[in-house]
C-alpha cells in the first residue's frame, strides 16, 4: 500500500540540521499552552492539533473562541486564514500525481499540507521518482504532524512553567524558520520575485483590509511575479 522505503525516507526529514522539528516544536508548544489557558483539556488540545494541523488556523480558532464568536464566525475566520492552503495544494499535488497510485492517498495526505511540510517537499521532491513521491510525502507529513501533536502535549503540560519571556521567545521561532526556508527557496527569478513582492504587498494590504490582506497581497504579488518571469 505505502512503500515503506520512501515513507521512512520522508519521515526522516524531521531529523538533521535542516529539520523543521525545532520550529514546529516551538510553535506547537505555544499552541498547547494557549489551548490550556483558554480552557481546553489535554484530550481536546491533542484532538485539535490532530485534526487541524495548520498553525494560523488554530490561533484564529483560539482567539475567536476566547471572545465567544459564533460557530459560523469561527468557520469563516478559519476558512479565510487557511485559504492559502488552496494554492499551496494546487502547487504541490501535480508534482505527486501518478497513475499507479490510489486516489485516497491524495485525499488523505492533503491533510499534511501546512507551511513546514510543504516547504520541505517543495525543496526535496526532485530527489524522488514521481511514482514514489506520494509515499515520500506521506512520510514527511506523518513526521511533521507527529512533532506537532507531541509538542502540543508538552506545551499543555508545561504551560504553568512558561513565563512571558519564554512565550515571546517561542513565538518568534516559527516566523524565523519560515523566513529562512523562504530565503533558501529563492532559486529562480520567478520564485524570488514572488517571495519578495508577497512580503511587501501582504503587509501593505493590511492597511486596506486586515482580514483579506494575505490573499490580496499574495495573489497580486504572485501574478506580477508570474508575468515578469514569463516575459523576461
Amino acid at each position, binding site marked *: 500500500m505505502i512503500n515503506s522505503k520512501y515513507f521512512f525516507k520522508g519521515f526522516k526529514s524531521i531529523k538533521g540540521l535542516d529539520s523543521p522539528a525545532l520550529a514546529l516544536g516551538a510553535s506547537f508548544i505555544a499552541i498547547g499552552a494557549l489551548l490550556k489557558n483558554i480552557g481546553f483539556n489535554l484530550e481536546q488540545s491533542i484532538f485539535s492539533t490532530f485534526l487541524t494541523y495548520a498553525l494560523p488556523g488554530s490561533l484564529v480558532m483560539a482567539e475567536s473562541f476566547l471572545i465567544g464568536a459564533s460557530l459560523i464566525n469561527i468557520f469563516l475566520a478559519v476558512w479565510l486564514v487557511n485559504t492559502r492552503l488552496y494554492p*499551496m495544494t494546487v502547487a504541490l499535488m501535480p508534482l505527486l500525481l501518478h497513475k499507479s497510485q490510489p486516489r485516497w492517498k491524495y485525499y488523505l495526505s492533503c491533510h499534511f499540507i501546512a507551511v513546514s511540510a510543504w516547504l520541505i517537499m517543495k525543496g526535496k521532491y526532485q530527489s524522488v521518482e514521481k511514482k514514489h513521491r506520494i509515499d515520500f510525502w506521506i512520510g514527511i507529513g506523518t513526521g511533521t504532524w507527529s512533532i506537532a501533536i507531541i509538542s502540543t502535549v508538552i506545551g499543555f503540560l508545561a504551560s504553568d512553567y512558561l513565563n512571558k519571556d519564554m512565550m515571546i521567545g517561542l513565538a518568534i521561532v516559527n516566523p524565523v524558520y519560515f523566513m529562512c526556508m523562504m530565503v533558501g527557496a529563492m532559486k529562480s527569478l520567478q520564485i524570488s520575485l514572488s517571495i519578495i513582492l508577497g512580503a511587501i504587498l501582504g503587509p501593505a494590504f493590511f492597511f486596506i483590509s486586515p482580514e483579506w490582506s494575505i490573499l490580496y497581497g499574495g495573489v497580486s504579488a504572485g501574478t506580477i511575479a508570474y508575468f515578469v518571469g514569463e516575459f523576461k
Partner: protein
Amino acid sequence: MSDISSNIIIVILVTSFATYLSRFLGVVSSKKIKETSKIFKWFNCIAYSVLAALIARMIIFPAGELAESDIFIRFFVVIVSVVIFLFNKKNLVYPTILSAILLALLNNFI
C-alpha cells in the same frame, strides 16, 4: 459531557473542516493540472507569495505574545537569523534557537 466541553469539540470540528476544505478543493483542482502547464506555474508563484505575505504579517503585525515585543527588535532578530542561516550552509538549527534567546533578551533589556 458538559455544555462547554461539547462546545469545544464542535469548535474543533468546525475549525478542522474549514481547514480541510481548501486542501480538499486543491486536490480536486490538481487532477487536471500538469506540472509543466502555465496555470501550475502561476499557482506556484501565488503559493510562494501568499506564504511570504503570511510570514511578513506574522512579523510586522503579529497576534498573541509576539505583539508585546517592539517591531524594530523583531526586525533585527529576523535579519540576524537570516544572515546566520546564510553563513552557516543553510543550517536551520542555529538561527531558530538563537532567535528565541535573542528576542527574549532584547525584549527585556531594551
